[in-house]
């Protein structure tokens, strides 16, 4: 039993590392932002717009480089974790006092993002497709 526990633990860790590595190898994605909803700490949610929320229309997701970037301008955001969970690419990160989590469905490309800070939460919906690496 004493021998089995470390082996099982090592196997589990290897498996987890494998899944994480697989997720990080996911290809470059280009995601279109479709809907933005803003919720306040008072409990009311209202539709916002891409312009009002100061979001780019398209977001480039690079799991390998662990970065989000806008093709329109130089804005970027780091990705802190990338995982594949039940056919969903799950991304998480934080920037300037905000935390965010996103899922991208592997089969449909449907994207949902939640961005939270102390008094406000944004929920962003969109869709992603595989993108070619940027040629320089």
């Amino acid at each position, binding site marked *: 039993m004493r021998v089995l526990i470390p082996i099982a633990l090592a196997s589990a860790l290897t498996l987890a590392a494998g899944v994480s590595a*697989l997720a*990080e*190898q*996911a*290809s*470059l994605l*280009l995601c*279109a932002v479709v809907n933005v909803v*803003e919720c306040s700490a008072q409990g009311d949610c*209202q539709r916002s717009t891409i*312009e*009002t*929320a*100061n*979001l*780019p*229309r*398209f*977001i*480039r997701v*690079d799991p*390998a*480089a*662990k*970065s*989000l*970037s*806008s*093709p*329109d*301008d*130089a*804005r*970027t*955001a*780091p990705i802190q974790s990338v995982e*594949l969970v039940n056919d969903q690419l799950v991304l998480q*990160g*934080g*920037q*300037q*006092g*905000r935390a*965010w989590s996103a899922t*991208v*469905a*592997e*089969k*449909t*490309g449907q994207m949902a993002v939640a*961005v939270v800070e102390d008094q*406000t939460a*944004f929920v962003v919906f969109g*869709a*992603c*497709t*595989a*993108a070619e*690496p*940027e040629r320089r």
Partner: protein
Amino acid sequence: MRLTRGNAGAIGVALTLLSGSLVPAAGQTFTYPSNGQSAQQESRDRGECHQWAVQQTGVDPASAAAMPAAPPPSAPPPGRGVARGALRGAAVGSVGGAIAGDAGKGAAAGAAMGGLIGGMRTRDQYAAQQDAYAQQQSQAQQASASRLDAYNRALNACLAGRGYTVR
């Protein structure tokens, strides 16, 4: 002459025409060559007085009018990747198994100004920025009008000094 319904109407029409076409617009001035100056002389005087007024006030209405207005704060510059991104966006929905594939070359990471997530804006923040921009524009317009007024006063003073009646 007795005022009848007919000629009262005619007078009303005449007054309307007067107010619409002959009364000068606010800020508009007229100069009259009181000393019988020729049109050529008047043109020369106007040119010299313009230069003098520009020197005195530091305002040249011609160059002030050509100055572009500052863009609103929320207008991002159009980027090189927008059209290409739009084309790819049209293919949304056909991802299939493409997500788990070869890793692409990464886009430049690093902290850009504002940040993609950190730079997001609430509706209240957006409204406050729009108000601040409108206020800034209004103040700029007032300052511009004030400078133009100074120029006009200097020009009129010069023309009056050269024997023109300015109204």
